């Protein structure tokens, strides 16, 4: 859905294709994170394999989308919205790739935990809860990107605060576990890494959402207070 028509139809379809590819990459990362979190809960080794396999495809997407971006810049000399779109795409792709890395991290840690299988961390439901929030943030951020919807993007930024709270509460619980029984320390630390990875996924989703606001409104809302950002998104 181009906001303005260009004289060259090809240019429009190039931009459309670029957006679609970013969203497909996002879908891949979404599935990857879901698989990683489910793997943490169930310990299914197939899921870990899938996460690690997907990582390669995500990396491939990152490189090829970045190449597409520079091609469009060279050939079309985009301006205004188009330029913002391309710059935002380039940043979003990096964020998505990092999320993929975090998912892989979760999968590797979970695999270790399950292979050792000494501690009842499988039942640590709060991780899955936080993970679901993170995936939902990513989903919303991508939806906002597809629809160029700044208000929905602002909501994602708000959600990031929830996930930060979740992270803090997980840390508190883990500390309690470790104090109760020092034998759980190594596993608890691994769970902590997983929680941190989820929190990072939330941060990256927030970045994607901020990029959407940048495309639509043309203002850089990174590192601003949430109230300012929300006002900007609604303006």
């Amino acid at each position, binding site marked *: *859905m181009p906001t303005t028509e260009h004289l060259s139809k090809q240019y429009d379809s190039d931009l*459309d294709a670029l*957006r*679609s590819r970013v*969203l*497909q990459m*996002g*879908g*891949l990362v*979404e*599935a990857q994170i*879901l698989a990683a979190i489910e793997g943490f809960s169930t310990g299914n080794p197939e899921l870990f394999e899938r996460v690690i396999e*997907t990582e390669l495809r995500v990396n491939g997407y990152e490189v090829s989308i970045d190449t597409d971006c520079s091609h469009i810049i060279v050939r079309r000399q985009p301006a205004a919205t188009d330029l913002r779109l391309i710059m935002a795409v380039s940043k979003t792709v990096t964020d998505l790739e990092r999320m993929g890395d975090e998912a892989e991290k979760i999968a590797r840690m979970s695999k270790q935990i399950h292979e050792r299988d000494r501690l009842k961390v499988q*039942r640590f*439901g709060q991780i*899955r809860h936080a993970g*679901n929030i993170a*995936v*939902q943030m990513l*989903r919303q951020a*991508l*939806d906002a990107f*597809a*629809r160029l919807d700044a208000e929905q993007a602002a909501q994602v930024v708000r959600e990031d605060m929830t996930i930060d709270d979740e992270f803090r509460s997980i840390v508190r619980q883990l500390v309690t576990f470790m104090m109760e029984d020092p034998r759980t320390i190594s596993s608890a630390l691994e769970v902590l890494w997983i929680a941190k990875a989820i929190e990072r996924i939330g941060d990256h989703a927030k970045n994607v959402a901020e990029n959407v606001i940048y495309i639509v409104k043309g203002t850089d809302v990174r590192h601003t207070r949430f109230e300012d950002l929300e006002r900007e998104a609604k303006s």
Partner: protein
Amino acid sequence: MGSVPAPDSRPRHARGEQGWKQPCDNAGLVFPAHTLNSVLVQTLTTAAWLAVPALIGRLAFGADAGWALFAGGLLIVSGYHARNLRRLLDWLGNPDPGDVPEASGAWDDAFALLHRRERRLAQERQRLARLVVRYSQAGRALPDGVVILDGDDRIVWCNGKAEARFGIDGKTDVGQPITNLVRQPEFVKYLAAGDYTGPAQLKTARGAALSLSVQIIPYDDAQKLLLARDITQAERLDTMRRDFVANVSHELRTPLTVLTGFLETVRELKLDPDRARNYMGMMAGQASRMQRIIDDLLTLSALESAPQPPWDRQVPMRAVLDSLCADAEALSGGRHRISLDAQGDWDLLGAESEIASALRNLITNAIRYSPAGGEVRLIWRASADGASFAVEDSGVGIEPEHIPRLTERFYRVDSGRSRETGGTGLGLAIVKHALLRHQASLQIESEPGKGSRFTVRFPARRVAAGHQSSGVTV
């Protein structure tokens, strides 16, 4: 007079008016012969009428005056025609069906025809609009999600089910490539592969987690129909059936293995009587566990095949509740605080043994999963609108992901624990069946670490006024 609209100028107007084809469009375009004749007659009449004053003028004032009068008359007549032509053109520029211009003479016929044609078009338009509405209503009512995609896989139309299942908006998302919003890699791959002979399966987690079976049907030129069927329930039934067979075998094999192990030991080794008695005791324990499992399985299948529980047999709830409470005290052995809070002097209608055993089962679970010193509350509420029985405990609680599966056969939240407390894994399945037969529902709420509440609700038609007079039993 050249200002009369020529017959061949009409189809152009008709063509410009509407984009779609109409079977009866041409009906209004044929110029009836009498109209043509009347145009001719009127033109001649006008000429004759002009000739009369011209002749009189010529006789009175000479030839020049006669011609001047004739020319003046012609001017007036052509002015009249020019004005009507102007009105026609104005109207054609902005056709309003309710405001076709009116005039007299030859123009009246032309405008009347136009008016009739407009009316017919308006009716046709309404009919088509109704048709479109009816079709889209039918599309909306389909149980499957339906999305129409164009040649570039962009969303053209979708129904409400598709909106809910894919998280798309049928109004604002029109024109979006479908893969921008339905991003599951499985789906993207299926759509791109172009082989639509079979459906693809994908999971969506928007709102509720669903399993969807999606099928693409290409039609017309490059258009595609995307159907999404919800197979969550079917998939669950499938795993349940698979799990059931695996579970029955597993549940029966475990005690059997123990049993054969001991049997071999007893047969091969010479044991002192004490040891032997000990082993025998354990074997008996395993045998009785198998017995319990088989009993429960038989109970379940009996419940499944038995006729409807009676509608005319009153279950004396007061007595039942008192006996349930006594059973609970006995099972707990004083380790829990057990309270009964009953209000409403109403009885249930149905099979007493089934109802009592279902409720007893819930209480047993509550006691079993509450640590010593915990609390178990039995709450009975009954009125003419229905009755409810709730068991609240302060036990270990249940993680939310287990709750929907609790009533499945052999489903265990924590397998080791359930077996060590003597469960067969069939208790809640039996409860659910017994309750379903009484049109009752079972609601489970739980918070891990805090406790659980199991609530049974009986509908009004399973409730009857009690025999006893006292209203409250505590």
